[in-house]
């Protein structure tokens, strides 16, 4: 039985983590003091937990840049996993499964729209989750990164990626939606087929006067259940886990390249080391 303490739960309510754990026989939520694994935000807390001999689930979006992510400590006896909720969403799991099986043929084009509320500036960390999905689905880092930002507040950011073999990705993140629900859309076009994850189709309609309202057909806590299952299995098997710290570092490096591209107004290219990006 994995005893998980919720120190920081990020943007996902604690009640959802609890609901997910309730569906698993080998995971239970406990006080942090008595936990052998913790959900934490930020590198310092993660490293402290590892030093204490605890396994770590690191809240997605809680690490600002790749240099900080590279400070994440790991030990053979502990598991450090990125709580990348996007990878474990049931809809995205379906896409990833057919992609991994080769059913769609070689991936050609990934398109993601992520629109949220709040109006704040879109930071590299906000992009990291979506960039991680692109790296994961293409199985490698992009070789070209181009990005544009809009507005003084920077509440909108668009990234254009090129992958080896001609693959390409467009991701846009906006924080300009008015108060209410978020919008998410992902499509993957492969050489032999395609997959579409789309709020537009997964919508119920409510007629209560005036224009009908759309009610999203939610995916519940199934994604968190899958995430906790993978984490618990890695802990039980004392094995490495995906996504781990290296995936976070990779996503943040691409996000930082996007930031530099915005400043330069030009695309950046993967350098000869395959580990960083440079202009032109």
């Amino acid at each position: 039985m994995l005893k998980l303490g919720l120190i920081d739960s990020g943007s996902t309510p604690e009640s959802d983590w609890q609901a997910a754990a309730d569906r698993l026989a080998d995971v239970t939520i406990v006080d942090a003091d008595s936990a052998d694994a913790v959900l934490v935000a930020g590198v310092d807390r993660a490293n402290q937990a590892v030093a204490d001999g605890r396994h770590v689930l690191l809240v997605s979006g809680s690490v600002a840049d790749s240099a900080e992510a590279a400070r994440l400590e790991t030990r053979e006896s502990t598991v450090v996993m990125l709580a990348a909720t996007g990878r474990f969403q049931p809809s995205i799991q379906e896409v990833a499964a057919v992609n991994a099986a080769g059913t769609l043929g070689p991936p050609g084009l990934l398109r993601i729209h992520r629109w949220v509320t709040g109006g704040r500036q879109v930071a590299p960390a906000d992009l990291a989750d979506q960039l991680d999905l692109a790296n994961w689905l293409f199985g490698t880092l992009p070789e070209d990164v181009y990005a544009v930002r809009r507005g003084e507040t920077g509440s909108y950011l668009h990234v254009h990626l090129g992958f080896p073999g001609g693959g390409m990705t467009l991701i846009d993140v906006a924080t300009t939606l008015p108060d209410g629900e978020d919008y998410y859309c992902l499509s993957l076009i492969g050489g032999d087929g395609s997959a579409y994850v789309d709020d537009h189709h997964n919508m119920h309609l409510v007629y209560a006067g005036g224009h009908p309202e759309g009610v999203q057909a939610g995916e519940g806590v199934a994604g968190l259940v899958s995430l906790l299952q993978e984490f618990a299995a890695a802990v039980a098997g004392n094995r490495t886990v995906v996504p781990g710290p290296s995936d976070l570092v990779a996503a943040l490096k691409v996000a930082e390249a996007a930031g530099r591209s915005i400043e330069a107004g030009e695309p950046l290219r993967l350098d000869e080391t395959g580990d960083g990006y440079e202009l032109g």
Partner: protein
Amino acid sequence: MSSGDTQSVFRCAVVSVVKHAYVPNGVVKHPRFDLVVVCDDEDQPDWVHERNQFYADERGIPYVRNIEQAIAEHDVQVAVISSEAERHCELAVRCAEAGLHVVQDKPMSNRVSECDRVVEAVAEHDVRFMMWNRNFLPALVEAKRVIDEGWIGRPYAFHVDFYFAKDSGPARGSRGPDEPPIDWLERQIEAHADGSDGGVGVDPMGELKIEGIYPLAYIQYLSGSRVERVYARTTAHFHQANFDNDVEDLATVTLEMEDGVIGTLCIGRIGAASHPDIGEIKLHVLGEAGGLVISEARPEVSVYYRNQPQFEFRGRRMAIDLDYQLMDDFAAAIDSGSGGILDAATSRDIAATVQAAVDSGKSGRVEAVV
């Protein structure tokens, strides 16, 4: 040049109809337009004459192998051009010089310099020009209304997915290494049977040039902004004919537009297996006060039945008033002497955007639209 009579019927010459017949067929959906003759140049190859003759016979009108003679003898006011892409502008210029208004199939041309000639000719001879487009599809009309009524505030980002789920000959990699490259024109002539010959002509064209006018016209129509800079990725991902001829069948384009407006385009001929219908065609628009998600196919009806042919569309579009509205707009443009929904200058700008995208796909750099 205006017609001066808002009830007059315009006599139209079909000036080459070697591609789809949907343009001339669409023109006569409006009661003010009548097809009276098909014409082309005598020196065209046999397959061109055969297709022109076939259409003339189908319509019960004469086919004349001399364009200037047909114009002179049949008292026409409008030219409907649906030739190979590389001839589009030359024919449009000749017709404009003869005083005809011009309706032209896409693409405007495979060369921006040719588009410039058309812009000059229609201005000099004071005739109207319309590129065939899809801006009056019900979903686009609705999107325009929602934006114009201010539901999402000032729009600042326009995204279009424009995928055609069609095949185009052998899949990439399906031919042996010793087989010769696929001849573009032969492949396009062969593709006429299933209507996927939008790229017919001697010069190979990728999907950006063949279909790019449609989604880029959507963005122009909804935003009213010109594109200034373009960054694109392009590849031949699906079809051997595209690979052999070094033209893309899949592309992504970032558009940097006037006033800080951003646009993007995903476009591809992605294979019949990739979608149950014609393909996913969708618009995402962000405004300062909201967002808009539009499915270009709607309204539609789903139809399923036993022994349904594999590639018959399950989703059937309906209530489409595109042809009538395009031609009504064109009639109004002629009557009033105004520009219309997609005039020569705007079409030329879109062709320049396409060219910049193709160039960016090759260079890997941001390209200015000139």
